[in-house]
């Protein structure tokens, strides 16, 4: 029997998810032994036409990382969906929109203005801006369309499973690959990581006081962080209470608070709003003015709470008409 065919693809991402595959280390040899990699732009020289030539559903599983912001990415994920039996959204960006999803606070026009005109390092005296079509010496050149809104993978195509994380840790990746190879998969639509919050697994949980209260929010660089104490008890915003576990607390162990890359548990739809509800409850004040003062010590609440999940939040983006 021929080996199952596997594809990897990247959309709007940083490349860290590709790195996560390589981080399987010697385990990658087991994977390579068990499957045929038929498409992997970052590592292997297959082209789009090679995928187009494959029969529909002939790829056993496509691992797609990155969010979708360009027409090209949209076209490629539709193609891979057609050719694949399973599609796994690989990493925070494909799962929830990820850091590129923060662009949903803006739109194409304001992003282009910033990138091609107003950043201090931009030198663009001729005011050149990328065009979808341009004719040079009688030849038409094209670029993909740049959308106003960044989308998570399942806002574009049907997704069978989600591997969370920025990037997903090697253990979760390996577990997922083995589950697929052995056909021991959970129900369709599952996030392939335990369905409980990070605090449940966090070693620092035992240092959390009986009644957790916060008088002032601080950022990690403003304090000497205690390497053992609950971050929230130190006044540091830690997304642990609203974030799914399974990451092996890589950030916590490096003495950095959770930023929420695993997204919410199954019980929660909107990670940012849920975290806001939890965090605000900890504010140690009853007086309206004092509450306001404490709330002001949080820089950029929306960007912090939705760092990885704005496209998959309830509102999905800033209201277009409100962008100047």
């Amino acid at each position, binding site marked *: 029997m021929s080996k199952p065919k596997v594809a990897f693809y990247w959309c709007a991402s940083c490349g860290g998810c590709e790195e996560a595959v390589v981080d399987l280390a010697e385990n990658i040899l087991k994977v390579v032994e068990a499957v045929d990699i038929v498409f992997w732009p970052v590592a292997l020289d297959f082209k789009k036409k090679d995928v187009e030539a494959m029969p529909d559903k002939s790829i056993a599983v496509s691992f797609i990382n990155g969010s979708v912001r360009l027409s090209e990415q949209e076209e490629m994920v539709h193609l891979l969906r057609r050719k694949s039996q399973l599609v796994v959204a690989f990493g925070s960006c494909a799962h929830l929109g990820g850091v590129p999803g923060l662009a949903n606070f803006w739109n194409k026009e304001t992003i282009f203005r910033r990138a091609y005109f107003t950043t201090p390092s931009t030198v663009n005296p001729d005011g050149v801006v990328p065009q979808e079509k341009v004719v040079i010496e009688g030849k038409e050149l094209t670029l993909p369309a740049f959308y106003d809104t960044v989308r998570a993978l399942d806002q574009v195509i049907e997704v069978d499973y989600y591997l969370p994380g920025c990037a997903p840790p090697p253990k979760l990746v390996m577990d997922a690959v083995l589950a697929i190879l052995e056909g021991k998969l959970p129900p369709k639509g599952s996030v392939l990581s335990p369905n409980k919050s990070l605090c449940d697994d966090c070693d620092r949980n035992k240092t959390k006081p009986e009644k957790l209260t916060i008088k002032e929010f601080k950022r990690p660089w403003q304090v000497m962080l205690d390497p053992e104490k609950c971050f929230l008890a130190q006044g540091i915003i830690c997304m642990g209470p609203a974030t799914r576990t399974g990451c092996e607390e890589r950030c916590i162990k490096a003495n950095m608070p959770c930023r929420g890359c695993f997204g919410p548990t199954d019980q929660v739809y909107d990670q940012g709003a849920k975290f806001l*509800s939890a965090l605000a409850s900890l504010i140690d004040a009853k007086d309206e003015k004092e509450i306001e003062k404490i709330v002001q010590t949080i820089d950029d609440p929306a960007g912090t709470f939705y760092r990885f999940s704005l496209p998959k939040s309830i509102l999905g983006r*800033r*209201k277009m008409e409100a962008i100047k």
Partner: protein
Amino acid sequence: MSNGSFEPRLVGFLCNWCSYTGADLAGTARMVYAPNIRIIRVMCSGRVDSQFVLKAFREGADGVLISGCHPGDCHYQEGNYKALRRYKLLVRMLEQLGIEKERCRLAWVSASEGARFQQIVNEFTDQIRRLGPLNFRFDGGSHEQA
């Protein structure tokens, strides 16, 4: 507001013990107030998750009212303080998402304050009428697809 016939759609989350009873009193006393509000009863204003408010806006609300017992009067001791803390943080986040903070209001209404409830709903309805429709649309960006 260009369209003079705009009627705001408001959602009100009212706590069971004070505000809902206050609204009920306004009703039984036959006080007339703007019919624009759709009331949802919750056990406590502290039960109002920020997700509820965002969902209301996404589903077409032009304004959201959260109403609970006066400070010190909460049936569960501190639920309304939780609501107040959340509200202060939520309106900051709403503004970042392009929703004016005036579209979300927190008000204390006791069980005996039918007239106050009437006044708050009328005021809030007028305020949102002046702001105009929210028209929050997010279709996952699919309108951009070719």
